């Protein structure tokens, strides 16, 4: 478990990091919290010549209120996201997903932006970010651009972040007053989810007015369960109505098969876990 030798750079500004990335191109690798990159290096599955550590860029840390959105700095550790009061009030789905992410050590080292940029389809943050319609702010040498969640996740471990770009912050549109729940199905506590479902619903007088449902590990990217969302709107927040809507959770998905379950089993799980997530979000 010894990585190959690499050079190490710890810039203090995004500009410095971008300059280094431009200079070294393919030979460089960005490190956020290192919770996925370091195992990959230690197992020698990747061998960059330069690791650019964003850990000293203070500007990338913290959570702030920005009108209709809550903005999370890419280098904010999961633990800070999990206990942030702004998020708890306006985007409760995010801290609920963080609560059971990996284990306590990883939640203190790993970062919100790093996990999303890693784009592991079994990662816990993609589905809630997608469900809440997050906007990803990406810096390049020519300035910043913003990418919608629907366009951010491209494929397995692949995002819209260009080779010479860095994810700097994630804007979560406020969903104040929405009920939220992240339901994770695992065999052991520290495991990546076999399937997980992120659900946020706005209930008006016992009726579901709006619903957002994101799926974890049901395809090469996090997915929106749009069929479920559409079926939920206008329905009572009841067991039967939610069950009927959740039956469509696996529509259009292509989940993986691995040691923890094959694709068919995951499709079945998605319907059960979605029902439970939506009911919990609706407080039913």
């Amino acid at each position, binding site marked *: 478990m010894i990585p190959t030798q690499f050079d190490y750079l710890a810039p203090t500004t995004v500009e410095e990091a971008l300059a280094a990335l431009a200079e070294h191109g393919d030979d460089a690798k960005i490190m956020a919290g290192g919770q996925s990159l370091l195992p990959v290096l230690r197992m*020698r599955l990747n061998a960059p010549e330069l690791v650019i550590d964003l850990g000293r860029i203070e500007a990338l840390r913290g959570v702030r209120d920005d009108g209709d959105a809550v903005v999370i700095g890419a280098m904010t550790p999961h633990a800070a996201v999990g206990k942030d009061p702004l998020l708890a009030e306006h985007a409760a789905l995010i801290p609920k997903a963080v609560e059971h992410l990996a284990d306590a050590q990883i939640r203190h080292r790993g970062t919100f932006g790093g996990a999303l940029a890693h*784009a592991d389809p079994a990662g816990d943050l993609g589905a809630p970010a997608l469900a809440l319609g997050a906007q990803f702010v990406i810096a390049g040498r020519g300035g910043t651009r913003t990418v919608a969640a629907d366009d951010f996740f491209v494929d397995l471990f692949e995002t819209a972040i260009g080779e010479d770009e860095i994810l700097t912050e994630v804007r979560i549109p406020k969903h104040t007053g929405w009920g939220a729940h992240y339901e994770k199905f695992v*065999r052991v506590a*520290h495991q990546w989810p076999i399937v997980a479902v992120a659900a946020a619903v706005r209930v008006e007088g016992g009726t579901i007015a709006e619903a957002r449902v994101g799926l974890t590990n049901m395809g090469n990217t996090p997915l929106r369960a749009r069929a479920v969302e559409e079926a939920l709107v206008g329905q009572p927040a009841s067991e039967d109505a939610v069950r009927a809507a959740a039956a469509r959770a696996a529509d259009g998905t292509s989940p993986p098969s691995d040691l923890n379950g094959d694709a068919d089993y995951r499709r079945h799980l998605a319907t059960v876990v979605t029902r439970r997530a939506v009911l919990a979000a609706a407080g039913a």
Partner: protein
Amino acid sequence: MTATQERPAAEIGRDRRRKEDQRLITGRTRWTDNIVLPGMLHLAMVRSPFAHARITAIDTSAAKQATNVVGVFTGADFGESLGVNINAWPITPDQVAPVHSPMPTDRVAFAGEVVAVVVARSAAEARDAAELVDVDYDELPAALDLKAAAADEVLAHPDLGTNKSALWRFDSAEAGTGGNVDEAIAKARTDGIVIEREYRQQRLIPAFMEPRSVVVDPTGEQLTMWSATQIPHILRFALAATTGVPESKIRVIAPDVGGGFGGKLQTTPEEWIAWAVARRLGKPVKYTETRSESLLSGHHGRDQWQKLTLSAEKDGTVTGFKVELLADLGAYVSLVGGGVPVLGAFMFNAIYKFPAYQFNCQTVLTNKTWTDAYRGAGRPEATFAIERMMTELAAELGVDPLEIREKNWITHEEFPFTTVAGLEYDSGNYEAATARAKELFGYDELRAEQRRRREAGDTVQLGIGVSTFTEMCGLAPSRVLGQLDYGAGGWEHASVRMTATGKVEVAVGVSPHGQGHETAFSQIVADRLGVPFEDVEILHGDTQISHKGLDTYGSRSLVVGGEAVVRAADKVIEKARPIAAHLLEASVDDLEFAGGRFTVRGTDQGVGIGELATAVFTAHNLPDGVEPSLDSDATFDPVNFNYPHGTHLCAMEVDTETGQVRMRKYTCVDDIGNIINPLIVSGQVHGGLVQGIAQALWEEAVYDDAGTLVSGSFVDYLLPTAADTISFEIDHTTSPATTNTLGTKGVGEAGTIASTPAVVNAVVDAVRHLGVDDITMPCTPERVWRAINAAGSGGTTEGAAMPHFEAGGAAGNQETPGASSTQGGLQ
């Protein structure tokens, strides 16, 4: 026969915190990898990525030119001086076994086998250069599936002509210990009940915390090897026997060792390679494996198919039990090898009075990692089989699973009892342990809840699993081992030395790797000699200090090694007695020894053992003809195995919608005789339970169709943590062993042996009303769900890992500049 023996004194029975824990937990101690010697070189292994392949060429030239590389060696560079890795237990005279070179030159037989070693000034440089070794392989078909391998469809070692290594058989009619099992089964087919099942014991990985590590120092008169091993004495013997170095020139040290669970009961290719390299270069070398290498190439455990036939009368009285095993040896016959399933041969009849019994075990070679002992070694497999079968018999008859056990078990009045497998159980009380377990568990209340949930058709169903177990441990009477063709004895040795200042040094031949021997043995010696606990120092693991011993495995350290300590301490007292009499000017017949002092009966005159140690050190005033030493040795060979037992009860909740399982309650009442340190016992029971539960629910070593270990990291080889377990309720009944002075029984493996069937029985019980009578281990949610929905046992595990750490994974924006080559790969 509960609790008849009086507790002799203050230390035994006391909840002493373990004196070794401060250094073990902080890691500020002598782990092998912490050892740094002047001029020490580092090794990296080049391992085969293929399960079975001919080696056509190895090009080491690029690696030899890499920075700070001192040498690159293949098996051809060493020839016979490399030695071989031995099998110490050929279970039959005609056992078929391939020669096991630590570094083969012509053919690799499992993925992970070492084909070359790189020596460099740092571990990182050695690792870097290992990637430059270019090995050409011609892939051969691999024998992977155990049943297919047993049919010789593909040969793991073509030269041997068969994969079938040995067929070992015990038949009670032939042995004169019982009736004819085939007759019993035939009769039951006409007028009784026959239960036939086939169970899979999945392959497990010992997964000890400290990876294996070895340091060899060839400078000095004796060659010294430090190794993270359970067996320094056996290791020394095997080095001498196979590498041509006289035993007297070899010193082996197992310093602090971080766990083993049987996984370090081995003599490994890596140790042999380090030995050869150090001798060749004349410099100290170190090799420490990575976790991936540990999972890949350290020996695995279990891996059996069990075909079982149980016959009974219509009232549930068992009339016969027939066992037909296939046991996967992996690519080589390891140190204990086929002896592991044979250790189970005497335990399938468990606590029961079966009139007829037959055991057949075919060991089979495959192109997978070799297998050997893993906590329980043969006995968990046996216990699983019989405890699942007794539960199935109860289900067939529609009676409570405890009732069917009670109908068949040995009653406490019947001890000592000679079983159908020919063992004499010395003591036990299954009724008492079961009664206490039922009470603690709330058995009747949970059964009532189970009925309510079934009647209501709850999504989450409740199941209750039972496992009443016994095991044979305390390995072992040397004569019995001889009869079984094991290559060593089963005695144990201890020396008790009194220092000049009255402290006590105890050198023991057993070799702890986390068990707490230093604490437990100190308690025993403190009571025996009447000295403070803190004044006792336990020395172990160095063949120059603890020169005799047979090491630690098979729950033997206390019941065999502890008895050696007791006997050596008693000899110290007897050697001190004439000296005390001399100093007190009294007759030896008038002396009493208690509380660390000799006193003259009826007077207040006395002398302490510490004062006598000082008197012996000066030797100024000793009686004529008495040697100036109190130091004493004892070697103890047990007359019998040791038979702990217990009743384990488990309640599992099963979510019928998802197959998710959740433990609700676990209660066990183990009878392990007299207890030296209840805190250590609790730790052993808790840890043992979790390992056994993990076999039932989580752990499985999975290979793909190419023979690659898919569960090659802890992402895919699922080990539980504290977050996945519950608080266990444990208690004890006490039937002291009659075969050692302290009345103790082994506890190191008990929890692991008993818990696996308790959990599976509970999971099956939760869904039996839905038509399920078996679920393959590990009982994953998917298997449970499939069993409920298709009424099968849940199928095999899909051979694919989660992709989190695959090449190209990790952090979006770049390509993969230098993913490792397949040839140097598998770090």
